[in-house]
């Protein structure tokens, strides 16, 4: 993307943060304000692909309180051993 006659690599610029962009382009003779504007225009065109996570503006949901607790599972005695439908233990002679 062209800005003030300089051809910026838009795909690269959109993949880095503004801080990195400013650091990498400070030698090009533009003012910080101009570089920031260039970055803003690049992001508008290419999207922000810098991968920096943004803070959520939604309020955090509080943990659930009250409500019905799930019942504990209990296992009936004798079911751990392999039994046939009649409930008799196998293998017993």
């Amino acid at each position, binding site marked *: 993307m062209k800005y003030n006659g300089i051809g910026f690599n838009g795909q*690269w*610029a959109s993949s880095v943060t503004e801080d990195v962009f400013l650091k990498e*382009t400070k030698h090009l003779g533009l003012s910080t304000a101009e570089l920031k504007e260039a970055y803003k225009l690049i992001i508008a065109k290419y999207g922000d692909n810098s991968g920096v996570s943004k803070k959520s503006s939604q309020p955090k949901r509080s943990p659930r309180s009250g409500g019905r607790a799930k019942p504990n599972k209990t296992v009936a005695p004798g079911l751990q051993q392999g039994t046939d439908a009649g409930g008799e233990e196998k293998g017993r002679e």
Partner: protein
Amino acid sequence: MSIISLCGNVGANTGPIKCDIRRGVPKVLMLGGASFVANDYATSAAFQTALLASINLATGDSGKIYPFPEIQNVTNNTEANTTGTTGLGFQFILREGKPAYTFGVIVGSNQEKQLRKFNNSIVPVFTFDSAGNVWGKRDVNGNFVGTEALIFVAGKPFSDGNSVDTEYTNVTVSFLSASDFFDYAAFVNTDFNIGDLEGLYDAQLYEFGANVDNVHKIGAKVINSQLGKDTNLFDYFADELAVAGLWEAHTGADFGTSLAITSIAKDTVNKVWTVTFSSVPYLALADGAKIRVRLVSPTSLKAGSVVQVEGFPVIIAKANTP
């Protein structure tokens, strides 16, 4: 008198087609392996688009076409048929002579050097004639291709002030097959001007001065026979080439690893471009590591308004500024 005859199986129907087209005077040779399928020559406009695209392909592409300069003189060097005459005066045509021509072109030293790089090559040849027709041949698949010929370009000598023959760079074209030339001849009509059919310039990239860490200065020039007078493409494409997307950089074995270029800026003082590489991968390279810098393909350059140019790369070395 013979009672058995195969005469009905000899030859072919010979009905005349009104307004059929004949070869005109050759005006421009175009050499290269382009193969135009039926869709490419379905209309004159489609063919013209396809041919121009072939001219703009990169060197190394098997479909690239190289136009030669306008022909100013034609000499027919076709070998006479070899004949044999029996003792009683009956003449046989023993062997057909193969078509061959010498075309005189008027070019400068730089262009002559480029033409001579085709010497002793056997290449397919398309011929644009005075009627606007592009001649070649139809191959077995029905595609329109060039007719193979051996090329030799004789450089222009000093003019002798007496003969116009010393004004030409002579391009000798010897067609390999009379059958291909005559029996499989095919053409497409166009409305090209000769000026539409021009080749590309070799734009050699070079490094200018010393780098400052990941910031290098790269120029582009067309080398001229006149020493010290190379053509600086900054004078033609300063703004157009200040676009990051028209440049590429690679490192590593066989230059297989891309190195991001973050920006390209004009350097109007030195008439070159400031090429900035992404600092993290650049600084990670070993000192002296080779970086190949080049322009994108001629087709992509043309889309960026950098026309009639093919870039050739420069190999630079990564160097940290002490």
